């Protein structure tokens, strides 16, 4: 519970900072970072805890986002109800893919999820009568309408994003300490040993996949209203899937704050590179790529582990346990 309290205090600090900050651009960069961190955290339920690296997680962003928007625009279903249906759709998708890829581990599982993500993108592009295909779906509004998730001030989305982030982080911490968390951890080390101890491996893996999808979807439905445009190549694209996995790994999967650090790192470099060089030259991608290579070469376990090592190298450090690692 101590951790939950710390998380809430940090949340309050960031909330006030966001409200006081006058620069809209910075707030929207922070909002993007927070959504990315939510997805990284959600990805961690599967990737970090069970060691199954998914490279198709953007489908759990795209599917609920499209379900919510389409129900809203075509059938006048409230986005709040639509969001629930969208999340349910993401979970159903995860259950099907999970059940089909159960026996796969390591790179084979990653390839399977990558292929599944590509199929979802193709379907969205192909059924353009329903989804508007590659041109995407704009969400336009001029007034605040909370029940439709429509806010004219970007700070509303910022608050939503950091609230989701705090909630997902607390939830992840709870999972780690739960019965399910122990089962997932045992599967990560050895599926054979987990089964030998009575863990129903297949069931636990599918459950972890579905949980991960549900949390990712939760971020997805709010994100698309923040951006105000459903762009299939972004929402369902491979780039987003890789980004989600990347920030979690770069941050450090063993740490509760790993994906948050990873997301802030990513968005900061992205924003700075765009500001100095402009997005057109591809400098942002190059700088990011080089930083990731540098991090992985220094310590493949990620930024949090590097910070921990640096901290332990200080000779007269105060005796504070900075490790947020949930063993």
């Amino acid at each position, binding site marked *: 519970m101590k951790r939950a309290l710390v998380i809430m205090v940090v949340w309050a600090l960031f909330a006030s900072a966001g409200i006081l900050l006058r620069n809209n651009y910075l707030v929207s960069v922070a909002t993007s970072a927070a959504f990315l961190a939510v997805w990284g955290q959600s990805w961690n339920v599967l990737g970090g*805890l069970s060691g199954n690296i998914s490279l198709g997680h953007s489908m759990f962003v795209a599917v609920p986002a499209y379900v919510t928007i389409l129900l809203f625009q075509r059938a006048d279903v409230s986005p709040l109800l639509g969001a629930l249906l969208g999340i349910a759709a993401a979970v159903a998708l995860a259950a099907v893919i999970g059940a089909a890829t159960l026996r796969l581990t390591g790179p084979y599982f990653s390839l399977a999820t990558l292929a599944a993500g590509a199929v979802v993108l193709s379907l969205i592009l192909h059924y353009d009568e329903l989804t508007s295909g590659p041109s995407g779906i704009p969400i336009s509004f001029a007034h605040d309408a909370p029940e439709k998730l429509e806010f004219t001030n970007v700070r509303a989305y910022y608050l939503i994003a950091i609230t989701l982030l705090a909630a997902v982080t607390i939830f992840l911490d709870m999972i780690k300490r739960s019965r399910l968390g122990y089962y997932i951890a*045992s599967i990560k*080390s*050895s599926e054979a040993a*987990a089964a*030998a*101890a*009575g863990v*129903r491996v297949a069931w636990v893996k599918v459950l972890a996949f579905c949980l991960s999808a549900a949390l990712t979807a939760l971020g997805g439905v709010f994100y698309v209203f923040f951006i105000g445009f459903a762009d299939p190549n972004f929402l369902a694209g491979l780039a987003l899937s890789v980004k989600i996995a990347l920030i979690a790994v770069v941050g450090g999967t063993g740490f509760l704050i790993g994906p948050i650090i990873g997301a802030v790192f990513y968005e900061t470099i992205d924003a700075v590179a765009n500001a100095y060089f402009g997005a057109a030259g591809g400098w942002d991608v190059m700088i990011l790529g080089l930083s990731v290579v540098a991090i992985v070469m220094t310590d493949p376990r990620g930024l949090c582990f590097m910070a921990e090592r640096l901290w332990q190298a200080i000779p007269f450090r105060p005796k504070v346990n900075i490790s947020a690692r949930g063993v």
Partner: protein
Amino acid sequence: MTALLALGGVAKSFGAVQSLVDVTFAIEDHGIVGLIGPNGAGKSTLINVLTGVYAPNSGTVYFAGRDIAALSTADRARIGLVRTFQRPHPILDLTCIEGVMVGGLCRGLSQAEARSEAHEKLELLGLANVADYSPRKLPTGHLKLLDFLRVLMLRPRLVLLDELMAGLSHNELEVVQGVIEQLAQTGITFLVVEHLMGVIRRLSRHLVVMDAGQIVTEGEPTTVIHDPRVVAAYLGDDVESGSGDGASHA
């Protein structure tokens, strides 16, 4: 009395290699049964078939009077048929005690119950001092004992020990053998697969010998060990040219 475990004509092959040719034997309730045989005799394959890791090509496996062919490894463990591995399988992201708790959680205990029972078990093997450490830096012997404790948490009826004792220190060996004897008294049955003949001699009241995927002989240990067929299995039919691979351990 029906046997706790009964195998009838179990066969398993991998491509052209027939690991188990025709294995038929039974283990009675209570006691410690030894299983020996030279490398490649099929002992580990047998354990994998018994625990549902491999499906046999033919034959039947009955546990406590029930055909368990359709049960998964986890479900077999939950009804009391458990195993340990030759190489340790630590749960790296959990502390030692949490790794042991997993077996108890699968038995349906709450976390608090599992933790206190796991603590008792760790104390039994003198491992209470590492309870809250990560298993990452522990020696192999400790890790094997943690694996053993994890499955004991399921309150098993039959424990298949696949070379549990190889690689343990002298002290650990003494403690574990004592614990196994003590548990056998309480009604848990053990099938002990070992190359360490000292362990086999001390623990087993009944000894089964495998070679080339078949049961060669079984019976009272001292008689069995001196059986000419067993000597032949270990040293080869022609003692002069035998490889002696298993014999070096024996």
